[in-house]
Protein backbone atom coordinates (compact mmCIF):
# COMPACT_ATOMS: atom_id res chain seq x y z
CA UNK A 1 0.00 0.00 0.00
CA UNK A 2 1.19 3.48 -0.76
CA UNK A 3 1.00 6.10 1.92
CA UNK A 4 -2.47 7.57 2.00
CA UNK A 5 -1.74 11.25 1.42
CA UNK A 6 -0.08 10.90 -1.96
CA UNK A 7 -2.01 8.50 -4.18
CA UNK A 8 0.14 6.91 -6.82
CA UNK A 9 -1.11 6.81 -10.37
CA UNK A 10 -0.04 3.29 -11.13
CA UNK A 11 -3.52 1.88 -10.63
CA UNK A 12 -5.46 4.41 -12.71
CA UNK A 13 -6.34 3.58 -16.29
CA UNK A 14 -4.54 5.72 -18.81
CA UNK A 15 -7.38 6.57 -21.18
CA UNK A 16 -9.88 7.85 -18.64
CA UNK A 17 -10.48 11.62 -18.91
CA UNK A 18 -9.11 12.42 -15.46
CA UNK A 19 -6.04 10.26 -15.80
CA UNK A 20 -3.62 13.04 -15.02
CA UNK A 21 -5.46 14.52 -12.09
CA UNK A 22 -4.81 13.31 -8.54
CA UNK A 23 -7.70 11.32 -7.16
CA UNK A 24 -9.90 12.72 -4.44
CA UNK A 25 -10.35 10.82 -1.25
CA UNK A 26 -13.99 10.09 -2.13
CA UNK A 27 -12.97 8.44 -5.36
CA UNK A 28 -10.32 6.45 -3.55
CA UNK A 29 -12.87 5.38 -0.98
CA UNK A 30 -15.22 4.22 -3.74
CA UNK A 31 -12.43 2.31 -5.40
CA UNK A 32 -11.50 0.65 -2.17
CA UNK A 33 -15.11 -0.41 -1.63
CA UNK A 34 -15.34 -1.80 -5.16
CA UNK A 35 -12.18 -3.78 -4.64
CA UNK A 36 -13.46 -5.12 -1.34
CA UNK A 37 -16.71 -6.25 -2.95
CA UNK A 38 -14.80 -7.88 -5.79
CA UNK A 39 -12.48 -9.67 -3.39
CA UNK A 40 -15.41 -10.86 -1.30
CA UNK A 41 -17.18 -12.30 -4.33
CA UNK A 42 -13.95 -13.96 -5.45
CA UNK A 43 -13.38 -15.43 -2.03
CA UNK A 44 -16.86 -16.95 -2.02
CA UNK A 45 -16.34 -18.31 -5.51
CA UNK A 46 -13.06 -19.90 -4.52
CA UNK A 47 -14.55 -21.52 -1.47
CA UNK A 48 -17.39 -23.14 -3.38
CA UNK A 49 -15.02 -24.01 -6.22
CA UNK A 50 -12.69 -25.95 -3.96
CA UNK A 51 -15.51 -28.27 -2.97
CA UNK A 52 -15.58 -30.28 -6.17
CA UNK A 53 -12.74 -32.74 -6.39
CA UNK A 54 -10.58 -32.90 -9.48
CA UNK A 55 -11.35 -35.79 -11.77
CA UNK A 56 -7.76 -36.39 -12.86
CA UNK A 57 -6.02 -39.71 -12.40
CA UNK A 58 -3.79 -38.45 -9.59
CA UNK A 59 -6.67 -37.36 -7.40
CA UNK A 60 -8.50 -40.58 -8.27
CA UNK A 61 -5.51 -42.58 -7.08
CA UNK A 62 -5.35 -40.44 -3.94
CA UNK A 63 -9.03 -41.10 -3.31
CA UNK A 64 -8.53 -44.85 -3.83
CA UNK A 65 -5.56 -44.89 -1.44
CA UNK A 66 -7.58 -42.99 1.12
CA UNK A 67 -10.62 -45.28 0.99
CA UNK A 68 -8.64 -48.52 0.90
CA UNK A 69 -6.44 -47.50 3.81
CA UNK A 70 -9.55 -46.60 5.82
CA UNK A 71 -11.03 -50.03 5.19
CA UNK A 72 -7.83 -51.98 5.79
CA UNK A 73 -7.18 -50.10 9.01
CA UNK A 74 -10.63 -51.03 10.33
CA UNK A 75 -10.17 -54.73 9.57
CA UNK A 76 -6.62 -54.75 10.96
CA UNK A 77 -7.64 -53.09 14.22
CA UNK A 78 -10.54 -55.53 14.60
CA UNK A 79 -8.28 -58.51 13.97
CA UNK A 80 -5.62 -57.15 16.30
CA UNK A 81 -8.09 -56.59 19.13
CA UNK A 82 -9.55 -60.04 18.60
CA UNK A 83 -6.13 -61.65 18.68
CA UNK A 84 -5.25 -59.77 21.87
CA UNK A 85 -8.55 -60.74 23.48
CA UNK A 86 -7.99 -64.40 22.61
CA UNK A 87 -4.46 -64.28 23.91
CA UNK A 88 -5.18 -62.64 27.23
CA UNK A 89 -8.73 -63.84 27.96
CA UNK A 90 -8.38 -67.33 26.50
CA UNK A 91 -11.54 -66.98 24.42
CA UNK A 92 -10.01 -68.47 21.28
CA UNK A 93 -11.33 -68.47 18.60
CA UNK A 94 -14.40 -66.39 19.38
CA UNK A 95 -12.65 -63.11 20.05
CA UNK A 96 -10.93 -63.16 16.67
CA UNK A 97 -14.11 -64.17 14.83
CA UNK A 98 -16.37 -61.59 16.43
CA UNK A 99 -13.92 -58.71 16.46
CA UNK A 100 -12.83 -59.41 12.89
CA UNK A 101 -16.47 -59.11 11.82
CA UNK A 102 -16.86 -55.94 13.86
CA UNK A 103 -13.65 -54.63 12.31
CA UNK A 104 -15.10 -55.31 8.89
CA UNK A 105 -18.15 -53.25 9.89
CA UNK A 106 -15.92 -50.49 11.23
CA UNK A 107 -13.90 -50.49 8.01
CA UNK A 108 -17.06 -50.17 5.95
CA UNK A 109 -18.26 -47.40 8.24
CA UNK A 110 -14.90 -45.64 7.83
CA UNK A 111 -15.20 -45.78 4.06
CA UNK A 112 -18.76 -44.52 3.97
CA UNK A 113 -17.87 -41.77 6.39
CA UNK A 114 -14.83 -40.58 4.50
CA UNK A 115 -16.79 -40.72 1.25
CA UNK A 116 -19.46 -38.62 2.92
CA UNK A 117 -22.33 -41.10 2.58
CA UNK A 118 -22.88 -41.48 6.33
CA UNK A 119 -23.16 -38.51 8.64
CA UNK A 120 -20.36 -38.11 11.14
CA UNK A 121 -21.00 -39.52 14.55
CA UNK A 122 -22.96 -36.90 16.43
CA UNK A 123 -22.47 -38.39 19.86
CA UNK A 124 -23.92 -36.60 22.82
CA UNK A 125 -25.02 -33.00 22.58
CA UNK A 126 -22.90 -30.52 24.46
CA UNK A 127 -24.06 -27.04 25.31
CA UNK A 128 -24.46 -25.12 22.10
CA UNK A 129 -23.05 -21.84 23.35
CA UNK A 130 -19.69 -22.20 21.71
CA UNK A 131 -18.29 -20.87 18.50
CA UNK A 132 -19.47 -23.65 16.23
CA UNK A 133 -22.91 -22.06 16.05
CA UNK A 134 -21.61 -18.95 14.38
CA UNK A 135 -22.42 -18.88 10.70
CA UNK A 136 -19.22 -19.01 8.74
Amino acid sequence: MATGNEPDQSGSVGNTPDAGKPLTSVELENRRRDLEAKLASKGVGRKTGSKDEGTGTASGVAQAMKLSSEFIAGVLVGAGLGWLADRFLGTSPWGLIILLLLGFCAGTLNILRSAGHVAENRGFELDKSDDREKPE
Partner: protein
Amino acid sequence: MANDPIHQFQIARWIPIDVGGIDLSFTNSSFFMVATVAVASAFLYLTSSNRGLIPTRLQSVSEMAYEFVASTLRDSAGTAGMRFFPFVFSLFMFVLTANVLGLFPYFYTVTSQIIVTFALAILVIGTVLVYGFAKHGFKFLGVFVPSGVPAALLLLVVPIEIISFLSRPISLSVRLFANMLAGHITLKVFAGFVVSLGSLGALGIGGAILPLIMTVAITGLEFLVAFLQAYVFTVLACMYLNDAVHPGGH
Protein backbone atom coordinates in the same frame (compact mmCIF):
# COMPACT_ATOMS: atom_id res chain seq x y z
CA MET B 1 23.54 -52.86 -5.12
CA ALA B 2 22.73 -49.95 -7.36
CA ASN B 3 19.63 -51.58 -8.79
CA ASP B 4 17.89 -52.65 -5.61
CA PRO B 5 14.76 -50.50 -5.21
CA ILE B 6 14.58 -51.19 -1.46
CA HIS B 7 18.15 -50.19 -0.80
CA GLN B 8 17.18 -46.53 -0.39
CA PHE B 9 15.15 -47.33 2.71
CA GLN B 10 17.91 -49.08 4.62
CA ILE B 11 18.79 -47.65 7.99
CA ALA B 12 22.49 -46.97 8.42
CA ARG B 13 23.84 -46.44 11.93
CA TRP B 14 26.04 -43.39 11.67
CA ILE B 15 26.87 -42.96 15.36
CA PRO B 16 26.12 -46.15 17.31
CA ILE B 17 24.66 -45.34 20.73
CA ASP B 18 23.53 -48.08 23.06
CA VAL B 19 21.79 -47.24 26.33
CA GLY B 20 21.09 -50.22 28.53
CA GLY B 21 20.48 -52.61 25.64
CA ILE B 22 18.24 -50.12 23.82
CA ASP B 23 19.55 -49.11 20.42
CA LEU B 24 19.52 -45.32 20.32
CA SER B 25 21.95 -44.97 17.44
CA PHE B 26 22.04 -41.80 15.43
CA THR B 27 21.04 -43.13 12.01
CA ASN B 28 20.57 -41.63 8.58
CA SER B 29 16.88 -41.47 9.45
CA SER B 30 17.64 -39.44 12.57
CA PHE B 31 19.89 -37.17 10.59
CA PHE B 32 17.20 -36.41 8.03
CA MET B 33 14.65 -35.80 10.77
CA VAL B 34 17.02 -33.24 12.27
CA ALA B 35 17.60 -31.84 8.79
CA THR B 36 13.85 -31.61 8.21
CA VAL B 37 13.34 -29.63 11.39
CA ALA B 38 16.34 -27.43 10.63
CA VAL B 39 15.26 -26.72 7.05
CA ALA B 40 11.66 -25.99 8.02
CA SER B 41 12.66 -23.70 10.90
CA ALA B 42 15.33 -21.92 8.90
CA PHE B 43 12.96 -21.40 5.99
CA LEU B 44 10.23 -19.95 8.16
CA TYR B 45 12.67 -17.84 10.17
CA LEU B 46 14.54 -16.42 7.20
CA THR B 47 11.49 -15.75 5.06
CA SER B 48 9.58 -14.02 7.85
CA SER B 49 12.46 -12.06 9.38
CA ASN B 50 12.05 -9.14 6.94
CA ARG B 51 8.32 -8.83 7.57
CA GLY B 52 7.74 -6.64 4.53
CA LEU B 53 4.21 -5.32 4.16
CA ILE B 54 4.55 -6.22 0.50
CA PRO B 55 5.85 -9.78 0.83
CA THR B 56 8.69 -11.12 -1.24
CA ARG B 57 8.07 -14.38 -3.04
CA LEU B 58 9.51 -16.53 -0.30
CA GLN B 59 7.76 -14.58 2.42
CA SER B 60 4.45 -15.10 0.68
CA VAL B 61 5.19 -18.84 0.51
CA SER B 62 5.52 -19.05 4.28
CA GLU B 63 2.49 -16.79 4.70
CA MET B 64 0.52 -19.11 2.44
CA ALA B 65 1.56 -22.09 4.54
CA TYR B 66 0.47 -20.27 7.67
CA GLU B 67 -2.86 -19.15 6.24
CA PHE B 68 -3.58 -22.53 4.72
CA VAL B 69 -3.14 -24.37 8.02
CA ALA B 70 -4.97 -21.66 9.97
CA SER B 71 -7.99 -21.73 7.67
CA THR B 72 -8.08 -25.53 7.55
CA LEU B 73 -8.02 -25.74 11.31
CA ARG B 74 -10.57 -22.96 11.77
CA ASP B 75 -12.92 -24.51 9.21
CA SER B 76 -12.87 -27.96 10.75
CA ALA B 77 -12.43 -27.30 14.48
CA GLY B 78 -13.74 -23.76 14.93
CA THR B 79 -12.07 -20.92 16.78
CA ALA B 80 -11.72 -23.08 19.88
CA GLY B 81 -9.58 -25.45 17.83
CA MET B 82 -7.06 -22.70 17.14
CA ARG B 83 -5.30 -23.55 20.40
CA PHE B 84 -3.89 -26.53 18.52
CA PHE B 85 -2.52 -24.30 15.78
CA PRO B 86 1.17 -24.54 16.79
CA PHE B 87 0.87 -28.31 16.92
CA VAL B 88 -0.90 -28.68 13.59
CA PHE B 89 1.38 -26.18 11.87
CA SER B 90 4.51 -27.98 13.11
CA LEU B 91 3.03 -31.26 11.95
CA PHE B 92 2.25 -29.87 8.50
CA MET B 93 5.67 -28.29 8.07
CA PHE B 94 7.44 -31.44 9.27
CA VAL B 95 5.57 -33.78 6.95
CA LEU B 96 5.79 -31.43 3.98
CA THR B 97 9.50 -30.74 4.43
CA ALA B 98 10.28 -34.41 5.01
CA ASN B 99 8.35 -35.40 1.87
CA VAL B 100 10.03 -32.76 -0.26
CA LEU B 101 13.51 -33.44 1.12
CA GLY B 102 13.00 -37.11 0.30
CA LEU B 103 12.67 -36.23 -3.38
CA PHE B 104 16.29 -35.16 -3.62
CA PRO B 105 18.55 -37.87 -5.01
CA TYR B 106 20.47 -39.77 -2.31
CA PHE B 107 18.34 -38.22 0.44
CA TYR B 108 16.57 -40.43 2.89
CA THR B 109 12.77 -40.17 3.01
CA VAL B 110 11.83 -40.01 6.68
CA THR B 111 8.10 -40.38 6.03
CA SER B 112 8.60 -43.67 4.19
CA GLN B 113 9.17 -45.35 7.55
CA ILE B 114 5.89 -46.47 9.09
CA ILE B 115 7.18 -46.00 12.61
CA VAL B 116 7.75 -42.29 11.95
CA THR B 117 4.31 -41.69 10.46
CA PHE B 118 2.74 -43.85 13.14
CA ALA B 119 4.43 -41.79 15.85
CA LEU B 120 3.01 -38.63 14.25
CA ALA B 121 -0.46 -40.17 14.06
CA ILE B 122 -0.28 -41.38 17.68
CA LEU B 123 0.71 -37.84 18.65
CA VAL B 124 -2.49 -36.55 17.05
CA ILE B 125 -4.76 -39.21 18.54
CA GLY B 126 -3.00 -38.92 21.91
CA THR B 127 -3.66 -35.19 21.89
CA VAL B 128 -7.32 -35.85 21.06
CA LEU B 129 -7.66 -38.34 23.91
CA VAL B 130 -5.75 -36.34 26.54
CA TYR B 131 -7.39 -33.05 25.70
CA GLY B 132 -10.82 -34.63 25.27
CA PHE B 133 -10.75 -36.32 28.67
CA ALA B 134 -9.19 -33.28 30.37
CA LYS B 135 -11.80 -30.92 28.92
CA HIS B 136 -14.96 -33.02 28.96
CA GLY B 137 -14.16 -35.74 31.48
CA PHE B 138 -16.04 -38.98 30.99
CA LYS B 139 -18.57 -37.22 28.79
CA PHE B 140 -15.88 -37.55 26.11
CA LEU B 141 -16.75 -41.24 25.91
CA GLY B 142 -20.00 -40.06 24.33
CA VAL B 143 -18.04 -39.72 21.10
CA PHE B 144 -18.45 -43.49 20.78
CA VAL B 145 -22.22 -43.41 21.25
CA PRO B 146 -24.15 -42.17 18.24
CA SER B 147 -27.32 -40.34 19.14
CA GLY B 148 -30.69 -41.73 18.14
CA VAL B 149 -29.67 -45.39 18.18
CA PRO B 150 -31.94 -47.90 19.98
CA ALA B 151 -30.44 -49.22 23.21
CA ALA B 152 -30.41 -52.80 21.93
CA LEU B 153 -28.24 -51.84 18.98
CA LEU B 154 -25.78 -49.91 21.14
CA LEU B 155 -24.20 -53.24 22.11
CA LEU B 156 -23.20 -53.65 18.48
CA VAL B 157 -22.67 -50.05 17.46
CA VAL B 158 -20.40 -48.95 20.30
CA PRO B 159 -17.71 -51.60 19.62
CA ILE B 160 -17.83 -50.70 15.94
CA GLU B 161 -17.38 -47.03 16.78
CA ILE B 162 -14.49 -47.86 19.11
CA ILE B 163 -12.75 -49.94 16.44
CA SER B 164 -13.40 -47.16 13.95
CA PHE B 165 -11.79 -44.67 16.32
CA LEU B 166 -8.81 -46.94 16.97
CA SER B 167 -8.28 -47.46 13.26
CA ARG B 168 -7.75 -43.73 12.71
CA PRO B 169 -4.08 -43.56 13.67
CA ILE B 170 -3.43 -46.65 11.55
CA SER B 171 -5.13 -45.35 8.44
CA LEU B 172 -3.56 -41.93 8.97
CA SER B 173 -0.04 -43.34 9.22
CA VAL B 174 -0.42 -46.11 6.63
CA ARG B 175 -1.67 -43.65 4.02
CA LEU B 176 1.31 -41.33 4.32
CA PHE B 177 3.85 -44.15 4.61
CA ALA B 178 2.41 -46.21 1.73
CA ASN B 179 2.26 -43.24 -0.62
CA MET B 180 5.85 -42.25 -0.01
CA LEU B 181 7.16 -45.82 -0.08
CA ALA B 182 5.29 -46.83 -3.24
CA GLY B 183 6.24 -43.64 -5.04
CA HIS B 184 9.93 -43.96 -4.28
CA ILE B 185 10.03 -47.64 -5.21
CA THR B 186 8.28 -46.95 -8.53
CA LEU B 187 10.69 -44.15 -9.25
CA LYS B 188 13.67 -46.36 -8.50
CA VAL B 189 12.37 -49.28 -10.55
CA PHE B 190 11.82 -47.14 -13.64
CA ALA B 191 15.17 -45.43 -13.20
CA GLY B 192 16.75 -48.88 -12.91
CA PHE B 193 15.22 -49.85 -16.28
CA VAL B 194 17.01 -46.92 -17.87
CA VAL B 195 20.37 -48.17 -16.65
CA SER B 196 19.87 -51.84 -17.48
CA LEU B 197 18.42 -51.14 -20.92
CA GLY B 198 21.11 -48.58 -21.65
CA SER B 199 23.82 -51.19 -21.10
CA LEU B 200 22.38 -53.37 -23.89
CA GLY B 201 23.88 -51.40 -26.75
CA ALA B 202 22.36 -49.09 -29.37
CA LEU B 203 18.92 -50.73 -29.44
CA GLY B 204 18.79 -50.66 -25.66
CA ILE B 205 19.60 -46.97 -25.52
CA GLY B 206 16.69 -46.35 -27.88
CA GLY B 207 14.44 -48.43 -25.65
CA ALA B 208 15.71 -46.70 -22.53
CA ILE B 209 14.05 -43.46 -23.60
CA LEU B 210 10.62 -44.75 -22.62
CA PRO B 211 11.41 -45.48 -18.95
CA LEU B 212 13.38 -42.21 -18.87
CA ILE B 213 10.25 -40.28 -19.90
CA MET B 214 8.32 -42.27 -17.31
CA THR B 215 10.86 -41.40 -14.62
CA VAL B 216 10.56 -37.71 -15.39
CA ALA B 217 6.77 -37.94 -15.30
CA ILE B 218 6.75 -39.88 -12.02
CA THR B 219 9.11 -37.35 -10.46
CA GLY B 220 6.54 -34.68 -11.23
CA LEU B 221 3.80 -36.87 -9.79
CA GLU B 222 5.88 -37.46 -6.67
CA PHE B 223 6.09 -33.71 -6.05
CA LEU B 224 2.31 -33.61 -6.24
CA VAL B 225 2.02 -36.57 -3.87
CA ALA B 226 4.47 -34.98 -1.42
CA PHE B 227 2.28 -31.90 -1.11
CA LEU B 228 -1.00 -33.79 -1.31
CA GLN B 229 -0.11 -36.21 1.47
CA ALA B 230 1.07 -33.41 3.77
CA TYR B 231 -2.24 -31.69 3.02
CA VAL B 232 -4.31 -34.82 3.67
CA PHE B 233 -2.44 -35.53 6.89
CA THR B 234 -3.13 -32.01 8.12
CA VAL B 235 -6.80 -32.04 7.14
CA LEU B 236 -7.40 -35.34 8.89
CA ALA B 237 -5.47 -34.23 11.97
CA CYS B 238 -7.74 -31.16 12.10
CA MET B 239 -10.86 -33.33 11.78
CA TYR B 240 -9.74 -35.59 14.60
CA LEU B 241 -8.81 -32.65 16.80
CA ASN B 242 -12.31 -31.35 16.21
CA ASP B 243 -13.55 -34.42 18.10
CA ALA B 244 -11.50 -33.36 21.09
CA VAL B 245 -12.83 -29.80 21.06
CA HIS B 246 -16.43 -30.57 20.12
CA PRO B 247 -17.21 -34.22 20.84
CA GLY B 248 -20.88 -33.51 20.24
CA GLY B 249 -21.22 -31.51 17.09
CA HIS B 250 -19.86 -31.87 13.61
